[in-house]
């Protein structure tokens, strides 16, 4: 578990660098669209809710896992996965909408750093969802074995950690972007 925690800390540094890049470049619009023209805070609020709900449902999965209840654990994991997919769908909709309006990553330094930072977080959620499905298959085949419990605990840390990074994203990118 300590090894996985160290991996998360290295991931944290990757995000710190992307946040720094966004902080440095985020004001350079190259006469293109600014955050105010692009961001829809209602959408971001819904998105944040999805991720927050997925965090607590994963917590419930861990509690049912502790009690050794396989079916309930699987159910909570499935709910978590659905919230994850909802988050990703909303994010992809947002990206598609922005690209459709000509706000592509090539448009300005602001948009390059925006898509890199938010896209990297989205990729993490994508891989977390793939991992979640993998572990659900593992649990379905072998039950809540010692190895599977440890894997689920690692994914739990990964999932909650992504929620922590998202706090930084919605505050630093979206909310502060609207204040510019």
């Amino acid at each position: 578990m300590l090894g996985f925690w160290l991996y998360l800390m290295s991931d944290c540094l990757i995000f710190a660098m992307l946040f720094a890049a966004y902080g440095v470049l985020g004001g350079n619009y190259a006469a293109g669209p600014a955050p105010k023209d692009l961001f829809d805070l209602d959408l971001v609020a819904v998105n944040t809710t999805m991720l927050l709900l997925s965090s607590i449902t994963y917590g419930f999965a861990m509690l049912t896992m502790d009690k050794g209840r396989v079916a309930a654990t699987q159910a909570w994991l499935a709910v978590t996965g659905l919230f994850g997919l909802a988050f990703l769908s909303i994010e992809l909709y947002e990206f598609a909408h922005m690209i459709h309006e000509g706000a592509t990553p090539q448009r300005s330094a602001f948009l390059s750093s925006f898509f890199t930072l938010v896209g990297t977080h989205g990729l993490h959620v994508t891989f977390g969802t793939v991992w979640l499905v993998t572990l659900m298959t593992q649990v379905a085949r072998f039950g809540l074995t010692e190895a599977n419990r440890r894997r689920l605990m690692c994914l739990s840390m990964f999932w909650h950690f992504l929620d922590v990074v998202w706090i930084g994203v919605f505050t630093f990118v979206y909310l502060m972007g609207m204040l510019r």
Partner: protein
Amino acid sequence: MSAHDHAADHGHAHGGAAHGSFRGYLIGFVLSVILTAIPFWLVMSGAIDNKQATAIVIMAFAVVQIVVHMVFFLHMNTASEGGWSMLALIFTLILVVIVLTGSLWVMYHLNANMMPGLHDMREMP
């Protein structure tokens, strides 16, 4: 704290870190909802006239919420893994602060010093 029947055979796997309790998760969730709703409301309604003040307030909310997540969801404490996970976290936080403040500070001053050049560019047709 949750009952841990198998503490003896897999306690070493996570150094005695608890998985939390229903109550703990619920407290963390409710606090997170409040700590998310207020900054969104502040920005969407423009309750504080001063933009810089709003920015500082929402950043403070973010920091508090990150701590809430660390404690209630990631179960961070000084005891887990014999203190090594906390040590790794503190080390990472120091690096994060250096990376963020360093980059922003240096690039802000670079931009400020480049301003005359930028100004000339804008006057060009």
